[in-house]
């Protein structure tokens, strides 16, 4: 970070992070049915990618998107009921997406789409507790609250290889969302001179 951020940039960060969170949160509601829960990593980046692309078009400096990722992780941690891992994945995904944006010189659409795919990997933080070493503890934890039947249904949907499928769904969803967002920008915002 060479020089201080302008206030205008920081306000953009705040406003667009809030918009992104709300879109993610609303889309999350379809995940209350256990079967749809598995599809969430695909659907969320598709819808949320649209405002994300508009935000990318406003970014002109390294660091802005990292802040956005950290704030998003913070608010997901506070309101989204995930473990502290989400703080880590959101921050890292924000940083990586920021690096990709910088490589594109903050202008290239291709880099923006790639950054959208990379940032949607924050979703790993939401479902990593179902896999690897966390699995037994997590399932045991929710058994007391949600009951055995729910846990059985959940664990039958999520064998170990499902982790990689879900991570891949994040990336694919991010790419589709990025393309959609680029199309929306072209259709609505370029003409109005807003992007």
């Amino acid at each position: 970070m060479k020089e201080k951020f302008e206030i205008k940039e920081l306000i953009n960060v705040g406003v667009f992070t809030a918009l992104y969170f709300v879109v993610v949160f609303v889309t999350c509601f379809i995940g209350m049915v256990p079967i749809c829960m598995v599809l969430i990593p695909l659907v969320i980046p598709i819808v949320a990618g649209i405002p994300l692309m508009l935000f990318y078009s406003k970014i002109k400096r390294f660091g802005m998107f990292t802040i956005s990722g950290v704030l998003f992780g913070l608010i997901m941690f506070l309101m989204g009921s995930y473990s502290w891992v989400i703080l880590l994945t959101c921050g890292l995904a924000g940083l990586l997406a920021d690096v990709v944006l910088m490589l594109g010189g903050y202008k290239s659409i291709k880099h923006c789409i790639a950054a959208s795919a990379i940032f949607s990997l924050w979703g790993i933080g939401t479902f990593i507790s179902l896999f690897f070493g966390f699995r037994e503890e997590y399932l045991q934890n929710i058994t007391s609250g949600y009951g055995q039947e729910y846990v059985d249904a959940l664990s039958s949907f999520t064998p170990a290889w499902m982790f990689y499928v879900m991570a891949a769904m994040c990336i694919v969803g991010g790419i589709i969302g990025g393309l959609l967002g680029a199309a929306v920008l072209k259709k609505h915002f370029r003409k109005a001179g807003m992007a």
Partner: protein
Amino acid sequence: MQIGLIGSSKNVIFDPDPRAKLSMLLAVNIVMISGGAAGVELVLRAVCAALPFLLLLSIRHFRAAVIYFILLGTAVYCEGFVLPYTHGIAGILLMIPCGILTRFTAGYVMCWYCVKSVSVSEFVTSMEKMHTPYFITIPLSVMFRYFPTLGEEYRSIHDAMKTREIGQSVKNPLIYIEYVLVPIMMSTVRIADELSAASLTKGLSAGGKRTHICEVRLTAADRLLILCSFAMIILFFVF
């Protein structure tokens, strides 16, 4: 929607420091979201469920407090006494809303209380006192202010769609998303521009130390609240 106006008016029974509110918010969220109910955890959960109720009473939002009480009470009752006797599909259908309600209601009501009772000025001042860098404080305060605005914008868009008789006729979800999201994005861009113009007139980018007239200060009660919140979090992780 009035934000942060209640905290500054006189008829508030008990108004803790923003920092105390934030630590309580953290404690309530961490304790309520994992669903265990045995031994020490049961006591902690009971305390955390009662906290938002009392705080709502303290800012004289009696209706919200009663709604919160009924909602959480019903969900806890269902989980404790009805669920053990239901099985299969009905069990899952009942269990999911109950599980969501018992876990999240307290946290959301707590969030709502914080947004309602902390003014932007108080929030920024207390963040400054915690030595948070400006590039975190400014986006964070913009964010908290922007959530209710988003709700307003959505309602206006919904009304506008109704008067033009679109909405119900749109079957394709992608088209519907476009119809709602594009105007919201437009107004987001516009609001961001207006906010930065407003901050320019307030001299936010001029540098120099920020001054304020609101009093933000930790009293003995606030220190006690912060201590209790962290004690609860530690107790929760130890047991």
